């Protein structure tokens, strides 16, 4: 799966940051910043112009017509201007969230200590009948 900064940025609001940060550290995978970063992507100049309805012929010519405009929902394009620090965080997230799978392991409940097993990549949240 290709690195996609826009997709990852749109994913950020969903992430329970502390939990992910702890899990990544426990697995020795990545050191994420302490707090969830606020990342804004900037479209390249030519694209921004292309997004607005062209007011004249000359403006049309200035835009790069070989690639489609970058729409908020269009995650296919990765042609965005990104702060290098933000890019590192997004690359770490890409590796963690999209390229890493727990195949065998367990999740331990922070409250009661119950262990939820992951086997062959499938997490089991079913409680044994005596605990239901």
């Amino acid at each position, binding site marked *: 799966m290709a690195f996609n900064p826009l997709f990852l940025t749109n994913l950020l609001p969903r992430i329970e940051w502390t939990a992910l940060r702890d899990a990544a550290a426990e697995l020795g995978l990545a050191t994420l910043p302490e707090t969830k970063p606020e990342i804004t992507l900037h479209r390249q100049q030519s694209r921004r112009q292309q997004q607005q309805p062209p007011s004249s012929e000359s403006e049309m010519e200035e835009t790069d017509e070989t690639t489609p405009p970058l729409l908020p929902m*269009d995650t296919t394009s990765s042609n965005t201007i990104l702060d290098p620090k933000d890019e590192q965080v997004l690359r770490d997230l890409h590796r963690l969230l999209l390229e890493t799978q727990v195949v065998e392991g367990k999740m331990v409940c922070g409250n009661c200590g119950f262990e939820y097993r992951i086997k062959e990549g499938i997490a*089991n*949240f*079913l409680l044994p*009948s005596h605990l239901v």
Partner: protein
Amino acid sequence: MLPTPETPGLPDSIYPPSEDSYLLLDALSDPIQISFLTERLKNTTCPLVADLGTGSGVILALVLAHAKLLLGRSDVLGLGVDINRDACFYSRNTVLANCKEHGSQATYLTTINSSLLAGLRPRQIDLLIFNPPYVPTPDVPTAMTPEAGPFQGKLAAHDRDSHLLSLSYSGGKDGLEVTNKLLEDLPNCLSQRGIAYVLLCKANKVEEIIKRILAWPKSEDTEWKAEVVRSSGKQAGWERLVILRIWRS
């Protein structure tokens, strides 16, 4: 009409795609639902689709493989939830094969082995799809846990399969025990923009359910709505299966 995802070599323990599954597929491919969902899900955060009782995975596979067409965007996350572990494995293959076949960029997370919404964070689901066990039965069967189930190691393969299969259709009293449990959790699990499509059968007291939902407490200036968006199998004037859309408006 989008092609129904195929289910080669479906094990006996998993509910095969049937009239109810097709009705849901039909509803989700309806242009009216497509524009409704596209409009509701257009704001930045990637939408999360959860298919409860994923079974063979045909519904989740269709939605994810055609996310761009059906939901208006391709950066969609898909999660399956099934109480039957066999279905967790099988649906994974169905979804991944279909996404690959159709070159979809949607992200399939996994199918977790769980009962309804246990283990999920509240207010996360943007599109919830539920084809519940709706057949009225004396009881709802118990889940089969790998470590400590009452049936572990005692059932022959055939009994094991029929027990797992029975989880997919046995709805308890009025066929509503499992659906009611889900409905209770719905306000807590749906995001503010979230929409649920729940399949019911005529024996499930549809009108009563709608009335109940409309009376749920308001939140953030929105009221609950529930509407039958699809029905099928008219028998002697009675609609046998219906699909209820539930959302805040």
